[in-house]
């Protein structure tokens, strides 16, 4: 998300501000503050930002939770089932004290639990695929909340982050790209042959426009909250570590590598432990990266930092046996990559496959296909100028370079 869009903003504002200004009596002088407020309003209401990034989050967390549920299949009764050591009675008692809730304690029957588990698997899969995304996102949030609350004493930071993201993703329009919904819209548009005009009353159109604006604003606020949350996560994780003596003297990773429950490959851990200089350097780098994270997001420096975080989490996943935790963190980082990065990815892949001698069609209707840049696959009427909320402020659909790049 973020700066890429922010940077392209002035162009949009100028374009739109220009047309609005043209309609205004020449004597009116805009105060800079007002202009700024208008520009802000424009960013907020005209266009959902980071549609690709939120879709990546949807795919990421949907698939991560699916993998998690399936991985724990043999242990599902022990973790969430009625026979868990954290008994339904204990869970209900805790919910009374804390105000938590979980649909899993509605019944102690084993069949009910199996049904919930199956529904959770299905919900995660459909959410990942982006089928009826908004409804699925709500269900997914309910599933994650319920399963998290039921096994609250078995969770770690990774589960915590998945829970937060499942809740925040409800706010976003995370099904507009790389989803079954997007595919359906594209097919519908193709069938309609580009003449999707339907006669509607003025009020109906106004209502639709208003609804769209609200959806956009809620989405943008959601993306902002997600971004802020990730910044707080890294910032606080880094600043907490700064207070620790082991991180200060560079020996923290030595202790981490010697925790027996986080040693899936003891030989590897012990081998790493033989290089105190490396241990110290990586430890310092970890803290620096985490503390720096919120501050580098607004410049080019974020790319190397993201790459460093990627390798750090890859290391955690393998060395400490925490792939769920690392996966959750990595997917969260994806929110900071701009849409043009994601839009460019398929081109890159296509070029790669073409070079490899595999011929792929230029345009497909498959899931992995990216919509034509410059157009919006969000439904034909979505960006018709006719139904924009206001003449000076609506999303300029074919605004070409500023709209999509």
């Amino acid at each position, binding site marked *: 998300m973020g700066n890429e869009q922010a940077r392209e903003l002035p162009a949009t504002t100028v374009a739109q501000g220009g047309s609005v200004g043209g*309609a205004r009596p020449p004597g009116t002088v805009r105060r800079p503050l*007002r202009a700024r407020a208008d520009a802000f309003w424009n960013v907020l209401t005209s266009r959902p930002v980071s549609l690709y990034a939120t879709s990546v989050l949807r795919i990421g967390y949907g698939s991560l939770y699916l993998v998690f549920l399936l*991985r724990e299949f*043999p*242990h599902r009764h*022990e*973790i969430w089932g009625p*026979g868990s*050591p*954290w*008994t339904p009675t204990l869970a209900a*008692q805790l919910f009374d*004290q804390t105000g*938590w809730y979980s649909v899993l304690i509605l019944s102690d029957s084993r069949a009910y639990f199996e049904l919930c588990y199956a529904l959770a698997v299905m919900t995660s899969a459909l959410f990942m695929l982006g089928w009826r995304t908004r409804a699925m996102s709500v269900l997914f949030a309910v599933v994650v*909340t319920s399963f998290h609350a039921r*096994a609250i*004493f*078995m*969770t*770690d*930071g990774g589960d*915590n982050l998945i829970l937060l993201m499942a809740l925040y993703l409800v706010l976003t329009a995370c099904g507009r790209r790389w989803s079954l919904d997007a595919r359906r819209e594209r097919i519908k548009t193709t069938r309609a042959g580009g003449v999707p005009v339907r006669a509607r009353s*003025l*009020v109906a*159109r*106004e*209502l639709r426009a*208003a609804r769209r604006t*609200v959806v956009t*604003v809620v989405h943008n606020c959601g993306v*902002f*909250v997600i971004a*802020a949350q990730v910044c*707080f*996560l890294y910032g*606080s*994780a880094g600043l*907490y*570590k*700064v207070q*620790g003596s082991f*991180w200060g003297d560079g*020996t923290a990773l*030595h202790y981490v590598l*010697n*925790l*027996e*429950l*986080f*040693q*899936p490959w003891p030989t590897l851990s012990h081998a790493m*432990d033989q290089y105190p200089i490396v241990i110290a350097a990586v430890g310092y780098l970890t803290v620096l990266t985490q503390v720096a994270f919120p501050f580098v997001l607004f410049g080019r420096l974020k790319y190397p930092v993201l790459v460093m975080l990627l390798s750090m989490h890859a290391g955690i996943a393998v060395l400490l*046996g925490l*792939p*769920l935790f690392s996966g959750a963190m990595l997917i969260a980082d994806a929110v900071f990559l701009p849409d043009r990065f994601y839009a460019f990815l398929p081109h890159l892949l296509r070029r790669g496959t073409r070079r490899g001698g595999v011929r792929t069609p230029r345009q497909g209707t498959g899931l992995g296909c990216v919509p034509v840049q410059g157009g919006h696959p969000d439904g034909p009427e979505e960006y018709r100028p*006719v139904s924009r909320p*206001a*003449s*000076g*402020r609506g999303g300029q659909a074919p605004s070409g370079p500023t709209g999509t790049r």
Partner: protein
Amino acid sequence: MRKREQSGSGPLSGEGHDDADPPATMAIGPRVLRTGLHSAVGLCLVVALVHVAVVFLAVAPSNSFSRRYGQQINAWVYPLFEQNWRLFAPNPDSFNRQILARTARTAPDGSMRVSPWLDLTAVDRAAVKHHVFPSHTAQNLLRRAWSSYVDTHGADDTARSERAAMMQTYLSNVAVDRVTGHDKGRRFDFIQLRVVTRPVAAPGARVVNRPPTPVENRLLPWWKVTVHGK
């Protein structure tokens, strides 16, 4: 200003200027709609900003603001927006815990039969070893059951709060399940836990093959086993 710009730009009135009079029947609808829209947008913004501010205060160290509004902050953040980013911070654990369990049952002649110790942590370690994706049941279940028990009990094994009693039941259930899972035929009436805490040697210390001397060897009281769940 915003409103003025919008008024009259009823979508079909083209590049509607302020002088383009909307039809009389439409006059109220759009205005109400616009007001509603503006309030909705404002509300979204305010909620987003407040949420971010509260989350910040929740992760920030205790300060005068969070002390004064601690209750409100907790009410907002818990349970859904809990912030828990202290993995390996401020310091990673510098010890390994080994949790062992043994059981006892009354024999027909009235005497007590006590089983040998079963190393529950070793079972977890074996489940983690050489596994790409270790289960939460191996990495978190026993570990967090014990840490929650210690959090609520301290060094004393008497449950002094409702939560402490709950954690004791939980820990006991975990141990019972583990022992039963390990030896299906075993019947027992009591269970006892022993927790051995061994420090991780400081870096550079000579590596010895035998495990380091425990810093703590905590023997818990015998607990009567209650059947749960199943």
